[in-house]
């Protein structure tokens, strides 16, 4: 076998003590902590044109960003749509997701919406068995929901609210026979006169 080049071996060379973590941040090797993930709501204002949703969803899948929900719809401006994304990532991942989104040509702007300074809502529609209509009605009212359809066998309820409230409402509905659930994913805007951009 051909030998290669000459020079001191790996063990004969000086080696620095320093280390970086998975995010490429310099750390004290003795005190490396687990990197915690956070839930972030990103709002992207985009050009309302074909392929934008595919471009955004493709970006998130190919870069392995953890996406919890995505909702999209028109805005006050005819030529623009707004995409609201809920992601679960370490802080560096959230930053990277924002920058990658901003990089897409049809994306006009990206805002991260903090829980405190934003109103975030989603809708769920849940279809349960009609065995106990009074109790279904009671639970629906308890969660500010609305019965939107009934049949001899089923009751369909609409719920809106922050994601966590929907979670707990749906948990309560589990006492009935849940047949089907559909959720829209979060839609969010900045609170008060602040523009979401």
């Amino acid at each position: 076998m051909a030998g290669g080049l000459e020079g001191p071996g790996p063990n004969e060379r000086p080696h620095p003590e320093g280390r970086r973590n998975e995010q490429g941040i310099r750390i004290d090797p003795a005190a490396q902590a687990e990197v915690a993930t956070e839930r972030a709501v990103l709002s992207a204002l985009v050009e309302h044109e074909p392929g934008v949703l595919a471009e955004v969803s493709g970006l998130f899948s190919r870069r392995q960003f953890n996406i919890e929900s995505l909702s999209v719809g028109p805005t006050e401006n005819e030529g623009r749509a707004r995409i609201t994304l809920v992601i679960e990532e370490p802080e560096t991942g959230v930053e990277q997701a924002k920058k990658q989104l901003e990089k897409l040509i049809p994306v006009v702007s990206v805002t991260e919406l903090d829980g405190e300074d934003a109103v975030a809502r989603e809708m769920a529609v849940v279809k349960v068995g009609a065995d106990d209509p009074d109790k279904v009605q009671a639970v629906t009212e308890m969660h500010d929901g609305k019965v939107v359809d009934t049949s001899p066998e089923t009751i369909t309820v609409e719920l809106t609210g922050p994601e966590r409230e929907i979670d707990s409402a749906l948990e309560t509905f589990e006492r009935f026979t849940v047949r089907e659930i559909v959720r829209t994913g979060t839609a969010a805007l900045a609170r008060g006169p602040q523009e979401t951009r």
Partner: protein
Amino acid sequence: MSETPDQKFPEEQWDEEQQEEEAISTGAESVVGALENVGVEVLFGVQGGAIMPVYDALYDSEMTHVTMAHEQGAAHAADAYGIVSGNPGVCLATSGPGATNLVTGIADASMDSDPMIALTGQVPTDLVGNDAFQETDTTGVTRPITKENYFAEDADTVGDEVGTAFQLAKRGRQGPTLVDLPKDITQGGTNVSPGTGELPDTYNPAEEAEEENVEAAAAALEAAEKPVILAGGGVIKGEASDELRSFAREHDIPVVTTMPGIGCFPEDDELCLSWAGMHGTGYANMAVTHTDLLLAIGTRFDDRLTGGVDTFAPEAEIAHVDIDPAEISKNVHADYPLIGDAERVLEQLDDAIAHSPDSREWVEQCQIWTEEYPMDYRTPDDEPLKPQFVVEALDEATADDTIVTTGVGQHQMWASQYWTFREPRTWVSSHGLGTMGYGLPAAIGARFAADDDQSVVCFEGDGSFLMTLQGLAVAVRENLDITVAVLNNEYVGMVRQWQDGFFEGRRMASEYSWCPDFARLADAFGASGFTVDDYDGVADAVEGALDYDGPSVIDFHIDPEENVFPMVPSGGANGQFAMNNDQLEEL
């Protein structure tokens, strides 16, 4: 429109009829007009059903069209044209297989941020979505590998879309764009003339870095004891080579390049440590490992450069200059983010630095490493021809501004290690995607972008060359002066090297027990062919091939067991490179 409507028509009806009457050109003519408006001179493509209207419009154009043998070659040629000229290269293909054959080349341009535009035919709009003959969802397929792509919907706007695609490919962080052209749109009438293309309102790359960050980075540089500049492909793309040279020399800072950055700083300069990474020089990897301040310019910290991120420049603060904000802290955290144009940010830094760092000891240390880890290979008489010798022989026989293209594999590494590059845009290779077969089509594209008196040399491996050598038909037809040096070891050599190193020598599917006679193959194509078996034959074949006015192929039968060193195993620490097989076994 300035003419007054004819009174005998009601206004609405008039509009419609007048439009029809004034449809003085077609969408296809707008496409061609847009390309001419932005200064395109050469196109690389392959004909086919859905793109025929565009080709028909090209019939009357002054632009040169190079008919390629395969669409992949068209994309690579356009990509290389973009690298050498700095202006987006243009490739054309028809729908379906034409478009999918471009995909490898588009992905290659995307990974290396090469300016390129692809124009693809598409089935008529009313057939789209019906699985029509030669229909592929081209915008869908290419969305992840283009900077932006467009599906043309109107003959009136298609020209401007092509113009926008061109501008987007060229401006900001460069990259490939694509316009998909349904046949009814290119055949459709229009009375709108295309302009030169405008950037979308949503696209505003920053020119200058924020002053606050510039000052912080400048202060860090002033205080650094072991500064290193890591110069990437962005230095070349951003035309910042001159600024880099004066900056590094004025402040006495050693320069390491990435592979795509090869040529931005002269490799024979005392401050140049050549390139770092998996097969980079030992001294470049030592410098990157021990630096305390890394000024990285136009690089995306690819894993082949960094090795394991945990051990990459572990003692260094990093100042990262990049025009793409998304590259900042993507793979490696930037302590000083400097978002902007490479040349402009270097000027800003230069203005902000009050005094150069005291780097004398460090520069000396780097010099010691160049002596400790030299790239000196041996040429024992009893062993076959060494590939490194071949690279150096061709380098010596050609002028300093010679353009080198390569395929991917061991031959690519030897070419990049043993050729001494001095100028930007003379090194043309497939870095990020690692596309075997890139070399010959890239040489064709480079030939069209190069000055007439500039030589073009292509290094290929036997395995890599076999993937795209149909391009020889193009080189002969166009009588292109290209010298192809095949470093033939009858292996997919890099795979063989990894099998020996990491798979217990189980050489599965890497041995080519039979290779064609490349010299005779060249002959069959109408090119000039040479075969070299030993050191004695090198000089004559090189001279013969370079003197030949047209494409030539030299089949160098090299030492089949030669490996590429230095080597940092995948994910390993850059400072732990192996200089030879014995050291590799230690790791």
